[in-house]
Structures are given as structure tokens and as C-alpha cells.
């Protein structure tokens, strides 16, 4: 206890120097928390964007459908599977789709696209596509021979609202099938995949086009929370058959999202290490200077029986107390800034095109994962403890006579 008291008193001896050190630790940590807040915020929004716009949380297909997109790979035991999924915990909504590769065009231009047949009533409960209609309207149940496409695709094939486009594909039986569709809506999501290479028609129209009858290719499930996915996955294993169905999470469907997250977090970790080194050196400098200034005093303390171990502990305690103050300041500052920008957001409107490939939002609401904060603090503590060993060791190794009679 006396050592702790001494540590506090020693820190108070040079308040300005101690304050600067605490500030260095605090600002460094606050900056890291904000950086994580920015990154976690962006990444979480990106995950949610992908889930809400495209994939839902989990999809169920016939085995191999995701890879091949073969029209004949309809969902086995569709009705019982649907019924059972509905009863699973955490399921907030679900919808069915038919999906195929297709050709869209006019007499002049054509493009390869991913054609999706959606059930408008349930689709809007699972994905947000409806909110991105920029011209015209979203599909309604019973809309036969009507399509919606992305604005970039419309531009590429030079069509506008109300125009007729032809969509052709290979039907389930292998024959070529095609119809003319009227453009009912044009959407703009900011995602290149959606805006440039996707077209939507109603599920009924798609079943008609592909000759599917009542069958579908995809069940899209939306859960009430993203972190309920593991629970849901273990539950659905009981329902579907391992070799006839494939169950894919959003992140297996769009692996590039987590790859991007890993990559961006690697960059932050590099910055984190650099900041940590700066913080560490700043603490070491302070403590080392205070040790050198106190050579005589520490010498007298050792002469009257203080052990080197006690001196080392004293110096380590001083480092630790400085650090704790810094961490407290950093946590407070970091969370305040992160909270503030979590409310007002940080907008990057001019970066829309750059972000469109990655499903990022142009407004980031900072939000920090506690895990990242704990991790940063642990790294800080471990690293500065190591760095703090040096002045402590130097102090403990002092010989009292040399320290007392030093010129």
C-alpha cells in the first residue's frame, strides 16, 4: 500500500510531465477507439447492407445451386422445408425466389444478367430493394411481364421506364425461353452488382419463363438479429437433408465482405501497433527521466533496506498508474467521439462510386465493438508493461553507494 502511495506521490511530483504522458496515452487510445469505431461502423453497415439488399441472413437451395445456377436444381421437399423453417426460433421473415442467368436486351443492345423472380409481398419483408426504386414502382403481386432493373443497366442497354425489354434464358427442360417485359421500375442501390447486372420479375413470371411450375430455387430467411445465425444454423440442420440441400449464410454467399473486413482490420492493427509504440516510448521516457532524476533518493531508499525488488515494483507501479489514468481518459474521449459520430454520422457523398463495389454506405455511423477496445487496451497494457520493465530494471540494478555518492 505504501508503495502505491509512493507511486502516486512520485507521479504528482512533476504534474506537467505526468499530465503530458497521460494525455499522450489518452489521445492515442481515443484515436484508436475512434478508428475502430469508424471501421466497425463501416463494416457493420456493409454487412447489414449486403444482408438487407441482397442475401438475407441465410439461404436454402438445392445442393450445388449457388455454384451452377442450373434451372433444374429446384428445392427438394420445398413445402415441408418451408413449413418447418417458419417454426424455427429467430426467424423474422422469409421469401422464395427463382434465379437464373439470362440475357436482357432490345433490338440494338443486350447484356448478360442475373434474373431473379421475387414474390413482392414477402420479398419486401426480407430485403430493402423496394426502398431503392428511383423511377417508376416496385413489382406488385400479379405483375405479369413486368420487370425492374438497375439504373446502370438501363443506361447500358438504353432503355427507360415503360420501354419493352426482352429477357431470354434456358428453361428447366433445356429449351430456350423468352418474353418481352415492360420496365416498371428502375432502382439505384449504389451497388454495382445490383445496378448493372440484375433484373427482377415476379416469382410467377419467372416460374412461367423457366417452366418451374410451383417450384422455386431459393428460400431467403431473415432473422431478427445477425448474431442469431449460429443458433439458426444448428436448428436448420435437423430440417434439411445434408446431401440434397445447401444452406448458406450471407457471408458464404458474399465472402468478399468479410475478406474486405479482414483486410481493413489488418491495416488498423498496423496503425494500432505504431500508435502503441509511440505511447510506449512516451511512457518509458517519462518514467526513465523520473528514475534518473531520483538516483540519489532511490539510492538512499536502497541503502536503508529497500530491496531492488521493491524499487522495481515501485517504478512499475508508477508506469501502471500513469497508464491507467491515460486509459481512463482515452476510453472516455474515445467513446464520446465515437458516440457523437455514431449519432450524427460521417458523410462521404463524393465517394459513392468508389464504395459501390463494396456495399459500403456513404454515411458512416461510428460504432465500436467492445472486443476491439478490450483488445487495444490489453495490447497497450502488455506492451507498456514490457517497455516499463526497462526503467524499473535500471532502477533496481542501481548500487546504492554509486547512487548516493554520484558526482
Amino acid at each position, binding site marked *: 500500500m*505504501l508503495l502505491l502511495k509512493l507511486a502516486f506521490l512520485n507521479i504528482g511530483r512533476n504534474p506537467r510531465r505526468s499530465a503530458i504522458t497521460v494525455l499522450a496515452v489518452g489521445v492515442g487510445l481515443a484515436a484508436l477507439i475512434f478508428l475502430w469505431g469508424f471501421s466497425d461502423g463501416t463494416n457493420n453497415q456493409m454487412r447489414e447492407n449486403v444482408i438487407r439488399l441482397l442475401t438475407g441472413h441465410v439461404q436454402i437451395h438445392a445442393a450445388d445451386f449457388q455454384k451452377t445456377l442450373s434451372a433444374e436444381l429446384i428445392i427438394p421437399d420445398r413445402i415441408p422445408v418451408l413449413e418447418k423453417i417458419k417454426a424455427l426460433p429467430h426467424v423474422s421473415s422469409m421469401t422464395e425466389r427463382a434465379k437464373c442467368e439470362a440475357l436482357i436486351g432490345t433490338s440494338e443492345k443486350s447484356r448478360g444478367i442475373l434474373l431473379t423472380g421475387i414474390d413482392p409481398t414477402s420479398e419486401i419483408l426480407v430485403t430493402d430493394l423496394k426502398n431503392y426504386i428511383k423511377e417508376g414502382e416496385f413489382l406488385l403481386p400479379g405483375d405479369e411481364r413486368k420487370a425492374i432493373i438497375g439504373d446502370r443497366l438501363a443506361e447500358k442497354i438504353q432503355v427507360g421506364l415503360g420501354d419493352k425489354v426482352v429477357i431470354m434464358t434456358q428453361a428447366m427442360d433445356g429449351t430456350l425461353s423468352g418474353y418481352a417485359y415492360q420496365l416498371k421500375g428502375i432502382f439505384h442501390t449504389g451497388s454495382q452488382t445490383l445496378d448493372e447486372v440484375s433484373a427482377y420479375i415476379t416469382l410467377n413470371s419467372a416460374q412461367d419463363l423457366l417452366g418451374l411450375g410451383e417450384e422455386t430455387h431459393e428460400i431467403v430467411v431473415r432473422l431478427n438479429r445477425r448474431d442469431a445465425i449460429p443458433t439458426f444454423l444448428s436448428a436448420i440442420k435437423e430440417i434439411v437433408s445434408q446431401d440434397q440441400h445447401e444452406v448458406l449464410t450471407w457471408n458464404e454467399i458474399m465472402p468478399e465482405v468479410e475478406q474486405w473486413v479482414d483486410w481493413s482490420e489488418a491495416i488498423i492493427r498496423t496503425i494500432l501497433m505504431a500508435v502503441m509504440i509511440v505511447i510506449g516510448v512516451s511512457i518509458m521516457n517519462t518514467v526513465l527521466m523520473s528514475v534518473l532524476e531520483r538516483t*540519489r533518493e532511490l539510492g*538512499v531508499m536502497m541503502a*536503508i*533496506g529497500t*530491496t*531492488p525488488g521493491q524499487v522495481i515494483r515501485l517504478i512499475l507501479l508508477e508506469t501502471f498508474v500513469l497508464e491507467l489514468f491515460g486509459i481512463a481518459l482515452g476510453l472516455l474521449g474515445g467513446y464520446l467521439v465515437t458516440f457523437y459520430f455514431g449519432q450524427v454520422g460521417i458523410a462521404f457523398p463524393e465517394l459513392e462510386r468508389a464504395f459501390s463495389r463494396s456495399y459500403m454506405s456513404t454515411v458512416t455511423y461510428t460504432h465500436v465493438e467492445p472486443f476491439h477496445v478490450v483488445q487495444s487496451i490489453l495490447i497497450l497494457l502488455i506492451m507498456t508493461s514490457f517497455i516499463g520493465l526497462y526503467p524499473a530494471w535500471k532502477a533496481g540494478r542501481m548500487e546504492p553507494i554509486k547512487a548516493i555518492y554520484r558526482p
Partner: protein
Amino acid sequence: MPIVQVNNVTKVFKERSNSIPVYALASVSIEIEEGAFTAVCGPSGSGKTTLLNLIGCLDRPTEGTITLGGEAISSLPQRKLSALRLNKIGFIFQEYNLIPTLTAIENVEYVLWLQKVSAHERRKRAIEICQRFKIDKLVNRRPFQMSRGQQQRVAVARAIVHKPSIVLGDELTANLDHKTGTELMEFLRELNEKENITFLYATHDPAMMKLAHRIISLQDGKLINEKAAIQTDL
């Protein structure tokens, strides 16, 4: 049996392997009896500080042996020396004896804390000694709020609060004016007489030597004139 026995002790300082060795002490033998009040004198560089440091377990002799209360200290490991300094020795240096961040009474208590004496007992003993030393008005002051003489008094209190076998003082009055220095030495002499505390102190000052029972004179690291010193006392 003497409290301190210094047998044929030589201390050689050699800065570097190629520099000329300095014989700070050369074959010195001294015995200090319990309850003695002994001065070590001699010109600057004669080895006074070196002798005190060796007896105080702050340094080891190059040759010869030193025993403290019958225990040979020359061969003990560093850790044991630290414990010996804590339990058997009281130090009073020339200046800056006190831990500057602690108050007078905390400085006195510090040694007891090192000895793991309970907080209650610590306070009790420290207060008691401060009253005896008439420094109870100073207890809550920090060193920079005290005069040098006051600081040295607190240092004396700290040096004897744990009842060491011997108290070593190296030029402990050198930074005090004559009056304060004499008062401090007379106070030590009084403690010596009343409480039988053994003191060994190094000094340049003839006035301080006069108070000693016995004077050990050093010159160039050698013991001289011990008999004459005793005569001075008579």
C-alpha cells in the same frame, strides 16, 4: 563481544583494468564495542566513507573480513545485505536523507514498513520517537518544509526507530552551521548515553570529534595514531 569487527580489511578501487588501483583502505583492523560513541577522522580521501560503507554493508571489502554482531558479512549475497542494512544498521548521510514525497513521520515509518510492522504499531512507534526527539511539530511536514537541522533530526529518528545494532553517520553535520551541528551531535551523545545506542560517525570537524569516546584516525587508507586518539578522550 564487539558489535563490529573489521579484520585486515583492504579496499581497492580500480575504475578500469588498466587504471592505477586506489587503496582506499589498506589492512585496517578495528573493533567497535556495543554502546561506543566513535568518531572516524582523517583528511579528505583518507578512507572514512569507504570504511563506513563497508561496515554498513553497502560495499564489500577487497580483502579481509567484517563481522556484524558475530555474523561475517563480506560473503553474504546482495539480498542478505539488504536485509542486514534494514535490520541491523541505521544510516544518516550528509544530506537528502529523507524521501522527499513523504512527511517526516512517514519517513520514520518507512523503515518499519520495510520491516513489515503493522500500520498501527508503526504509527505508535513513530509518534513515540518523534515526541522523544521533540520533533512532533514537524511530523506532517515534508522535507522541503524543514530546515537542514530539522531534516537531520528526522533522519536520526528514522535511523534508530527500528533499534539497529549500530548507527552510521557520514559527515552528518557537514551541511549544518556550527551551532546546529553541535546540538545534533550532543543529542546523539545523549541518546548514546541514555539508550546505549552504538554510533560510528565520520567527521572533519574537531568540535565533533571532541564528543567521541574514541577517535579512529585514518590517513591514506591506513589506521594511525589510535592511542593518541584515545588519549584525546582522556
